[in-house]
């Protein structure tokens, strides 16, 4: 069975051997690694062949070496991230890791669909995470080719040119379905929502959720992008609902249907691809609300993160990334 978790020493050996790696792990481990062809983001939560685990002793390694024709590494701030698509190779893909709660994350969340070349090349990645009991002590960080590059402000990218006989394929796994009786329209593109139109009537969303006893753990969904995508509610504070990814003005949204048993639904999921993905991520909210610790997700072994990048920022889903033969 393919191995995903490696010690610092094993990971360092792979780096010294010239492997092209995307890494996830505890900060104390990543900061021991030598310089080389790797990017990383912090997260101690992983979906492994042994099940979901929290592990601060090993690093989750996605080894993408075998399909690299050319490679470039680059860091981005909130302003330069607009070039992420045009900087990528024409026949390749970009893997992007963003630090959480940062200006660069906000820039990507709002701006990605407006970036030049949006969706013109595969862009996969995730938002770095952290131990939940450490939030006040440490924030998630990113790394680009060096332990010394640790940053809570810069996004890191690995631009890869693929061999002519390869292509990158991404899939978005969504465990939720929209309910059809409630349509929400947002009055502005935002991460903090007050008044909205619910079935055409102006209401305060926080009050509407409370008055109707709706479950704020369920995502807000839209199929406007011809693909069901989720936005998660972060918190409700007074009359304001904050969300983990922007809701867009002019796009009809639905609330998700209640899921009777999310852990079982995730356990029952069958990955249509018989081959495990080369990389990807699972949303922390899926991991926590789906009670994934100790449970296995069919054939998908990925880090657990604070946001998923599938061309744009999405929530409460699983992203798989695979290199395939044409």
């Amino acid at each position, binding site marked *: 069975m393919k191995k995903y978790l490696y010690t610092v020493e094993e990971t360092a050996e792979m780096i010294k051997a010239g492997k092209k790696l995307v890494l996830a792990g505890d900060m104390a481990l990543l900061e021991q690694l030598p310089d080389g062809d790797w990017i990383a983001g912090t997260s101690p939560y992983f979906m492994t062949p042994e099940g979901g685990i929290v592990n601060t002793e090993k690093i989750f390694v996605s080894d993408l070496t075998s399909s690299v024709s050319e490679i470039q590494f680059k860091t981005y701030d909130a302003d330069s991230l607009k070039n992420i698509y045009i900087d990528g190779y024409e026949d390749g893909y970009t893997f992007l890791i963003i630090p959480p709660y940062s200006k660069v994350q906000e820039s990507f969340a709002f701006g990605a669909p407006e970036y030049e070349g949006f969706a013109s090349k595969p862009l996969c990645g995730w938002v770095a995470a952290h131990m939940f009991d450490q939030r006040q002590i440490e924030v998630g960080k990113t790394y680009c080719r060096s332990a010394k590059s640790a940053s809570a402000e810069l996004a890191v990218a690995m631009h890869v040119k693929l061999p002519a006989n390869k292509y990158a394929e991404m899939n978005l796994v969504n465990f939720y379905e929209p309910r059809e009786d409630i349509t929400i329209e947002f009055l502005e593109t935002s991460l903090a929502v007050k008044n909205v139109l619910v079935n055409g009537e102006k209401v305060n969303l926080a009050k509407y959720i409370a008055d109707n006893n709706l479950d704020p753990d369920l995502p807000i969904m*839209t199929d406007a992008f011809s693909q069901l995508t989720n936005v998660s509610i972060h918190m409700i504070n007074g009359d304001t609902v904050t969300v983990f990814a922007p809701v867009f003005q002019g796009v009809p949204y639905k609330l998700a249907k209640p899921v009777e048993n999310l852990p079982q639904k995730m356990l029952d999921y069958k990955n249509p691809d018989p081959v495990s993905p080369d990389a990807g991520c699972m949303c922390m909210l899926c991991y926590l609300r789906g009670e994934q610790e100790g449970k296995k997700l069919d054939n998908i072994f990925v880090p657990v993160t604070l946001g998923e990048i*599938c061309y744009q920022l999405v929530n409460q889903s699983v992203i798989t990334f695979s290199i395939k033969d*044409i």
Partner: protein
Amino acid sequence: MIASNDPIWRRVIEGEVNPPLQFLAAKIAIGHLKLKAKTGKDGFTVEKASEELFAIYEKSAHLPSAAKDLEILSKL
């Protein structure tokens, strides 16, 4: 490959047809292109959105999911 001036690109952007597409890049992009064309933000037009959608498929026409979409689109 469907020609860039084929009306199908405009029909997709205007929502006249909503075929079951598989190519994820296009699926994500179509929503934003429709929205930008609808709002006309920064002078964005249906024509511009149609051109961008064509460009996404043109670049990836050799990929299995894009090729399947093109087959579906060519029959509409």
